[in-house]
């Protein structure tokens, strides 16, 4: 065997990767009889044991562990929630079919369905209203978005950057200290009015304001998910986070405004507008999500 191959076989010998007893004995003999091989053996085994004994292993921080467990829990809940509506729909369908096979309860079923439709169209889903009703607090994203939107309408909060080119807006966000990639959607009906960078616990956050030909205002607040899960710069309720993880988007109406929230490409978006919510869904959200 070539000496160079033999020297590399010392590495295999040190690592216990030589399975042939004969070959193992041959390498052992080389180490015992040759100073060069002995040196190579000492280097290979010496470095290996040095790393095994002295390498200072760091530990994953408690915070990292907690964040992972929290994210896993959210994932489990999201999976569970995504399963639930399917089960419910099947039951409802089965019940409806069941009712229609018996003429007497058919009318009651139809009336029930009618009232459910009326309720949903008028008030939205009660669960979502319940979720949004609980979004309060100094660092709550929805609460902040509500305040900002109100300030935009009153003229208290004015755009810091009025260019309408999405790339220039992205550059503005970047140079102003926003550390995450931003999305600047464009839409025929909604024209970009300007952009704002705000500060929250030392982190810079991105906001964009749009306006319509009718003078309606649409405000978009986008924040990287890590600012909720890892850095805790902002928060939303646990229920809302679960809903964001399982639903395409969430919709809610209050005081003449509509609020949309969704999670996309690792960011959480909150949109508030005094415009028509259906137009926003079809013209704006449809191209985004």
């Amino acid at each position, binding site marked *: 065997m070539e000496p160079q191959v033999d020297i*590399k076989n010392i590495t295999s010998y040190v690592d216990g990767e030589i399975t042939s007893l004969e070959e193992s004995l041959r390498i052992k003999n080389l180490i015992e009889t040759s100073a060069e091989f002995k040196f190579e053996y*000492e280097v290979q085994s010496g470095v290996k044991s040095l790393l095994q004994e*002295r390498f200072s292993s760091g530990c*994953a921080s408690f915070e990292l562990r907690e964040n*992972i467990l929290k994210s896993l*829990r959210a994932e*489990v809940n999201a999976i569970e929630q995504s399963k639930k509506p399917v089960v419910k729909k099947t039951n409802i369908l089965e019940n409806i079919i069941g009712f229609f096979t018996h003429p007497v309860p058919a009318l009651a079923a139809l009336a029930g369905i009618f009232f459910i439709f009326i309720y949903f169209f008028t008030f939205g889903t009660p669960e979502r209203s319940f979720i949004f009703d609980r979004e309060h607090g100094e660092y709550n994203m929805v609460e902040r978005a509500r305040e900002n939107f109100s300030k935009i309408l009153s003229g208290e909060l004015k755009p810091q950057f009025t260019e309408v080119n999405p790339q220039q807006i992205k550059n503005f966000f970047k140079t102003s200290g926003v550390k995450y990639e931003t999305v600047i959607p464009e839409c025929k009906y909604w024209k970009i009015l300007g952009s704002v960078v705000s500060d929250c616990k030392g982190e810079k956050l991105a906001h964009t304001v749009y306006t319509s030909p009718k003078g309606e205002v649409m405000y978009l607040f986008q924040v990287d998910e890590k600012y909720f899960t890892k850095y805790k710069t902002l928060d939303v309720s646990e229920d809302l986070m679960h809903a964001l993880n399982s639903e395409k988007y969430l919709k809610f109406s209050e005081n003449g405004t509509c609020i949309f929230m969704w999670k996309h490409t690792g960011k959480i978006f909150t949109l508030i507008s005094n415009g028509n919510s259906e137009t926003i869904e079809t013209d704006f959200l449809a191209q985004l999500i």
Partner: protein
Amino acid sequence: MLQKIEENTSPDLTQLYKDFEEEALPHMDALYNFALKMTGDSDTADDLIQDTYMKAFKFFDKFEKGTNCKAWLFRILKNSYINDYRKLSKQPDKVDYDDIENFYENIKATEIKTSHLVDDDFSRLMDDDISEAITTLPEDFRTVIILSDIEGFTYEEIAEFVDCPIGTVRSRLHRARKMLYTKLYKYAEDKGYVKSNSND
């Protein structure tokens, strides 16, 4: 933790989570150490580990029970690292292997002549010196030496991990240890723990 999950979830999902907690979570320190050595930054390592665990959980139902979970997690980590984190990582300066080889041969000639024991040279080095020496190794060599000497993976597992033949793993490991030895020897020499050989 598990109790909170169990309250609202189906038994299958609860079991999946329980299995994941038992099988995957104990390897977090090993993964973190590897991520830290590869990225060179604790925040980036944190993100990489979080991504790795979320991806692993999503695919945990595909994980074959009884196989090596640690190796499976390391493969997920490696893919995430290559796809999303490598470009962000601080890479060490390029190493001129010929320079290292010459220095190594120089030491070897002297040490063989004096029958000096290799182990003695590094006993006074600090753990941080060792850690820094690993960090400055080129990525290919750093990977194999961490996986072999610190994490205890076999050549076959490392070969699968780095996607190259076992012979290449052995060759990289051989050179990685020589490089590390040379670097540590230089540290020891600079600190006066061994006599200077560089001008011999």
